């Protein structure tokens, strides 16, 4: 069966309670999750604002951006997106370019810690432009900072990591024989995932091994590296990827290396292909988290700020939707999972259509 858990006998180091708790959470998150909730807007939003959005060329950024542009349209805003090259100076240049013709509101997906663009953030503050961020790169923005709100932050990612840990503990009855695959170059963004994952495994009394790879090898060098690692560490039963994109080509490589039956793959933020593989069973599980809905959330936040709302802690790192996908509960494999309720809840809350 593709299902998670069952065979957790207390024999392994993980104490029964821990395993049971994990199993409980997994079961809870495996059933279809309720739609997210969004409070109605306090008033009517001014139309025709220009909405600046700094994004990156990565697929995940693209998904958010497309959604966010739709959201802005819904409010009658005119959006202007700047795509940064994946280099710090490119990121800085993107900011400079956006601020050269300053928009009324700004949302951004950080490529690097905010210190890199502190000058630009300060300028935005001077101009009184509300700025919100998605998936802060290593920062924990707070209401005293230059950023007025941030989504998909530490707790979001941490939760995804934790869930990857849970499915493994629940299934293996312990956290042993597990490897976490990530690219430390992106640690600024991915640390929360790693923390959450390691924490859950530690609860079960183990420490996951870590395989460092370069995200630039996705689909080419990466599968070979993973296979080699698994061959060098035959004890490994579970592989957790910091990002579902990194699993591209891995199931096929495992097949060739006769490891397909002995190793289970889990990941987070799946693409359509991951869902398909999970359904087929070539990937074991994957953790869905809010991606495209963040595009709506930032616009929601900016809308409230434009109505004069003052951010409180609520505005930072609000919890979001998560879903454990297994072979049993994958329904569609045509597109990456959509946050339940999105975008309707936003349209409703903004009472636009």
């Amino acid at each position: 069966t593709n299902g998670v858990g069952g065979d957790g006998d207390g024999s392994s180091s993980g104490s029964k309670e821990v395993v049971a708790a994990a199993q409980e959470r997994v079961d809870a998150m495996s059933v279809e999750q309720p739609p997210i909730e969004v409070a109605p807007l306090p008033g009517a939003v001014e139309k025709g604002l220009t909405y600046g959005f700094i994004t990156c060329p990565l697929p995940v950024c693209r998904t958010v951006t497309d959604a966010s542009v739709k959201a802005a349209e819904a409010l009658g805003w005119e959006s202007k997106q700047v795509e940064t090259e994946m280099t710090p100076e490119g990121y800085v240049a993107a900011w400079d370019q956006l601020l050269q013709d300053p928009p009324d509101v700004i949302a951004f997906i950080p490529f690097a810690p905010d210190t890199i663009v502190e000058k630009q953030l300060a300028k935005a503050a001077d101009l009184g432009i509300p700025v919100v961020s998605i998936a802060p790169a290593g920062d924990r923005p707070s209401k005293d900072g230059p950023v007025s709100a941030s989504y998909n932050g530490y707790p979001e990612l941490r939760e995804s990591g934790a869930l990857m840990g849970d499915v493994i503990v629940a299934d293996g009855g312990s956290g042993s024989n597990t490897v976490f695959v990530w690219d430390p170059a992106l640690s600024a963004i991915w640390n929360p995932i790693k923390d959450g994952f390691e924490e859950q495994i530690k609860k079960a009394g183990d420490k996951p091994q870590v395989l460092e790879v370069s995200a630039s090898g996705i689909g080419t060098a990466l599968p070979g590296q993973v296979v080699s690692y698994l061959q060098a560490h035959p004890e490994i039963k579970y592989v957790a990827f910091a990002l579902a994109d990194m699993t591209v080509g891995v199931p096929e490589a495992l097949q060739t290396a006769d490891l397909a039956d002995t190793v289970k793959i889990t990941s987070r933020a799946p693409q359509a292909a991951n869902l398909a593989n999970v359904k087929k069973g070539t990937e074991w599980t994957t953790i869905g988290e809010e991606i495209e809905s963040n595009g709506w959330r930032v616009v929601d936040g900016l809308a409230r700020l434009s109505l004069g709302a003052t951010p409180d802690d609520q505005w930072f790192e609000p919890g979001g939707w998560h879903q454990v996908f297994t072979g049993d509960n994958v329904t569609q494999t045509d597109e990456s999972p959509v946050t339940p309720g999105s975008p309707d809840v936003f349209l409703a809350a903004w009472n636009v259509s």
Partner: protein
Amino acid sequence: MTSPADTAAEPVETASIPASTSRRSARGGGSGGLLLRFSGLYIWAAIIVVFGALVPQTFLTVQTATGIATNEAVTIIVAVGLLFSLAAGGFDLSMAQNLGFAAVVVATLSTVGGHGPWFSALVAIALSTAVGAINGFFVSVIRINSLIATLAMTSILLAATRLVSGQQFRGPLPDALRETSNAEPAGVPILVLYALIVAAAAWYLLEHTPFGRRLYATGANPEAAFLAGVRTGRHLFASFVITGFAAGLAGVLLAGKIGSVGPDIGPSYLLPSFAACFLGTTQLKPGKFNVWGTILSILLLATGVKGLQLLGGEQWITDAFNGLALLTAVSVAVVSARRAQSGRTVRRSTGRSAP
């Protein structure tokens, strides 16, 4: 400023490919020559022995062998294609991005595009071949330096790739395509078979047809070849078309192999392919871009990398290995080539045709 270079009593020939002078000694069959020609095989054997001793239980396995072969099959196909333009004296820097472009095209057409797998594959390969033809046109008709022409083409293809993929992962690919790349008739990964077929075909074309001979002549000395009646323009053009076609084929097979294609795939094939082709010029037929030497080089490097990975080496170690292996292998080749016929090198480099 002073430099070790002062000791060099001969002019430098950056243009010539590495052990270009060693061919003679190899032909002459001097033991030095032989040692040189097959050094790659020895080194490969050495690598296998060493890692076999260090990590026998994991390294000396069928999985390792098939794993290496399957991983490198795509590289082999694109590198073999690259040989043609190199042999004709052109550099196709765009071939890696062209591979990525083909992969994205087939993936997009066959998923969101909703087209049939075979149709999509054909379109992708056709487009890549067309790209090769465009390169060929600019290099052989307009006569732009091929490095620039293909540099520009790389940038254009990058744009096309981003546009087509919409910066999204495209997948899952239809099973038909995934099967085509992942089937294992009689336990042999089918990609390996494809690579072998492509290699054999290339070997035949390059070594055993007038076309191949004229290709090499075009690369060796375009003007003389032209005076000799070789249609150098046409041959250079053809060589770029072939390189483009191979890139397209490799791209489609890669897409099928990994089942889901992101926009950034491709560039990672640039360095390995060129490295292999150049390293290949020191092997089997020294001084000449040749098929089996190239493949030997690819497998040699891949084996070393695999061994290091099994030893638990970090990523940077494998990069360092690739670089050092290339550098040392070629150096050894060049130096011993010079040794093998010191007197003549000088004579040659200062104009044999002098009365």
